[in-house]
């Protein structure tokens, strides 16, 4: 086992790790090279499964001993029965899916709880870049140039909270992360990244 000391754990991963109960089942949509899933399997004894579109990332996941499906998120959820997983994770992947509404609905159907993590487009650095420089922002959490970004949706914390209200989605926990520490005040202005723990509210 490659021993990862907790200091090296990404702050968003640490937040998610804190929310997931031990011994549960987790589906990570857009699991990348499987770092979070490996952590969850090791530290939370979670039964983990990933979906990832990038072939190289699949090889990394398999090398970590993870079970992964090589496919895109947009079509990857339909096969699962309702409430198949205790948690479905959409960390830094929601903004990249084509049909966001469908993916959200499917994630909330398949997972008893859903974790959504995304870069906050209304963070003050982004606002300043648009307002004063008139340019599409490039920041720590949104590091891509306008012509070379995998992101299809640019959303803010307020946008997502409103979206949840409109769709009758229950918000159970939220965490707002800055560059170094969590953000307590005016998160829509200061937070780089937001993470929500939500559910359809039916269960």
């Amino acid at each position, binding site marked *: 086992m490659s021993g990862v000391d907790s200091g090296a754990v990404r702050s968003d991963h640490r937040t998610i790790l804190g929310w997931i109960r031990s011994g549960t089942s987790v589906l990570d949509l857009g699991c990348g090279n499987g770092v979070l899933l490996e952590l969850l399997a090791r530290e939370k004894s979670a039964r983990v499964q990933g979906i990832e579109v990038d072939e190289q990332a*699949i*090889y990394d996941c*398999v*090398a970590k001993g993870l*079970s*992964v*499906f*090589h*496919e895109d998120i947009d079509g990857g959820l339909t*096969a699962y029965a309702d409430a198949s997983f205790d948690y479905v994770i959409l960390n830094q992947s929601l903004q990249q899916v084509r049909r966001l509404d469908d993916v959200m609905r499917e994630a909330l159907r398949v997972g008893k709880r859903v974790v959504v993590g995304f870069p906050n487009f209304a963070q003050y650095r982004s606002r300043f870049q648009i307002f004063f420089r008139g340019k599409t922002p490039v920041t720590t959490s949104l590091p891509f140039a306008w012509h070379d970004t995998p992101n299809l949706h640019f959303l803010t914390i307020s946008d997502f909270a409103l979206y949840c209200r409109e769709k009758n989605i229950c918000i159970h926990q939220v965490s707002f992360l800055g560059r170094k520490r969590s953000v307590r005040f005016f998160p829509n202005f200061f937070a780089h990244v937001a993470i929500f723990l939500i559910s359809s509210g039916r269960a």
Partner: protein
Amino acid sequence: MSISNAELRSDQSVGIVETQYYRFADPPQRFVLESGEELGPITVAYETYGVLNEHNSNAVLILHALTGDAHAAGRHAGETRPGWWEEMIGPGKAFDTDKYYVICSNVLGGCKGTTGPASINPETGKRYDLDFPVITISDLVKVQCRLIDALGIDRLLAVAGGSMGGMQGLEWLTAHRERLHSAIIIASAARHSPQQIAFNEVGRQAIMADPAWRDGRYGGNPPAKGLAVARMIGHITYMSEGSMAEKFGRRLSDELPSHRFSNGFEVEEYLRYNGHRFVERFDANSYLYITKAMDTFDISRGRALHHALARVKAKVMLVAFKSDWLYPVAQSREIARACKLADVDTTYCEIDSTYGHDAFLLEVEEESHLVKHFLIKVSQQLERV
């Protein structure tokens, strides 16, 4: 891709190997086939590489494709050509013979040492030919069960195969689920599509249209032309448009055109050469029986596919190749989807290869990486139990 070369020690081989034979269903016993017909005695040609551990828990069964045989790795004494999956089986390779006891057997109905239509029927003293009963993929796998019984193996660490080998793997997974811990299914299908059946039927028609076929009673004078054409069709379906363009282009062959309408293109010469070479090593009736077994195979047996996979506890790895149009990725995705619904612990990978169906024998680097780490994980989970 960034898979390190240190992972692959392709220079290592299992060395000189010998085919062994196991015989069962001697009279008065008979082996009952899925059709209800009986057959016996049955000889199974097989090879093993590596050492069976003291718990008999490190056995991996390799399942060959349509025209494969038991000789999967190493070399036979006096021969230069290695086994058909030499790049994947050996010390330090994907199927690591330092760790695993690797078994490969020729399928029932084959012509490489296992009982098939070209074998002598003990009741008549002559070749079975078309008296050989109709066989199914399920029969092929039941014969393999008898072999691993004889080898003292209760439960396989893994079964692995591509194409028709993958079909046998699916049959193992569903019909003998208590006898394996994992299955590696490469470039395969839960059932043949009309297109796959159509290509097999053209191959069969080519054999039967050859006057030398003589209703299967050709003895020592096989329907060479028909079998060669069947193989040529096969070869076309194993490649991709891209890989053919790359391999042959419109280059002309050095050989003189063999018939009036030949254009002398390299691709024509390649097909003719491989067609004729195939006749030397394969029996035409075996081709008919085995392709029929492939075409009738349907793991779902009329149910929804995920019902067939219900209660499968084995871990599954599915691999498909993007340019494979004979066993297109959609067929592997269908299995992957059914595995999700049946809650089977599954990994699915689509390798971006240009080789077409042949990729399962050629994309060694990617396949090795996947298989190697998958088997390590399966072994670890076994140790923990």
